[in-house]
């Protein structure tokens, strides 16, 4: 009787483990996927499971005229941290999930509509570079946790941590957004830059969503 029970439990357990094992191309050894909220739904971020997969879209392109598509340095400023994919996933799983951070796709809407990182929100860089007198910029800053003081300045003590990205390390949209935020007074230690952007993300075959 015991043997039957043990066999049954082992089979049940192996069924659960098998579901995880079906993911052959994991993100890291310990991280096969990450579930995040996007547009009110749960989206699973994982890598394409086809080992023959190749990029054929615009991110397969290697050379664009510089200027304007020049390669950016690894560090934007001394205090803004440049991050990679794993730091971004950790940010989604912690700061964004707890409402303490926002992953910002700083590209223009026409780029965003082609596909973005699940869990991100689109704030096109011109809204941030428009200046605090612009009503839309002001609304965005308030949503990010900024408080406008009586003298017209902004206090970002309680503001969210922000991680920004755009198309890739040749793209200037996120850098312009970050520089605009710093100019407004957003604390640099609350800003993170995913320099690799969509090209880096797609090179790893990671999930994208079309909004």
């Amino acid at each position, binding site marked *: 009787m015991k043997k039957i*029970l043990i066999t049954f439990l082992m089979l049940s357990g192996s069924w659960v483990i098998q579901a995880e094992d079906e993911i052959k191309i994991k993100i890291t050894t310990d991280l096969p996927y990450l579930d995040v909220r996007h547009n009110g739904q749960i989206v699973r971020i994982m890598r394409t499971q086809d080992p023959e997969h190749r990029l054929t879209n615009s991110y397969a392109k290697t050379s664009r005229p510089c200027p304007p598509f020049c390669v950016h340095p690894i560090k934007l400023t001394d205090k803004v941290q440049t991050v990679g994919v794993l730091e971004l996933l950790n940010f989604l799983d912690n700061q*964004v*999930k707890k*409402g303490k951070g*926002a992953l910002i796709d700083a590209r223009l*809407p026409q780029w965003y509509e082609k596909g973005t990182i699940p869990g991100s*929100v689109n704030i*096109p860089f011109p809204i941030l570079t428009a200046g605090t007198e612009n009503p839309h910029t002001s609304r965005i800053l308030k*949503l990010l946790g900024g408080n406008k003081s009586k003298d017209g300045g902004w206090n970002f003590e309680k503001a969210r941590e922000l991680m920004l990205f755009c198309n890739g390390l040749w793209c200037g949209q996120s850098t312009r957004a970050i520089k605009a935020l710093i100019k407004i007074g957003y604390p640099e230690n609350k800003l993170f830059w995913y320099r690799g952007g969509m090209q880096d993300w797609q090179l790893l075959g990671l999930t994208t969503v079309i909004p």
Partner: protein
Amino acid sequence: MKYLNKLLLFIPLVWVLIGCQQSETEKQPDNQTEAPQQPVVVNENDESASTVSAPSEDEKSDQPLSIDEFNDAIYEVVQDSIQDAVENAVEDEVAKEEQQQ
């Protein structure tokens, strides 16, 4: 065999119950920070019962938005700004045409 039959009936039942429990958990909102809209009576039978007022607008604005509320609010601003940009562009074009005429 008598026990085996009972076991085979019992185990699927446990699986179903676990499944139901998990799906109920998944239905819970991520961030239950929504404030009650109406005053909440603490104890109806107690004469000294106090009434807890619903939070003011200022208090509400201090409460963190859920992920979906935050994303929706950002989306709304972005759409408004796009709309404004389109309207401004149209106005500019109309002004240019009027000048040319």
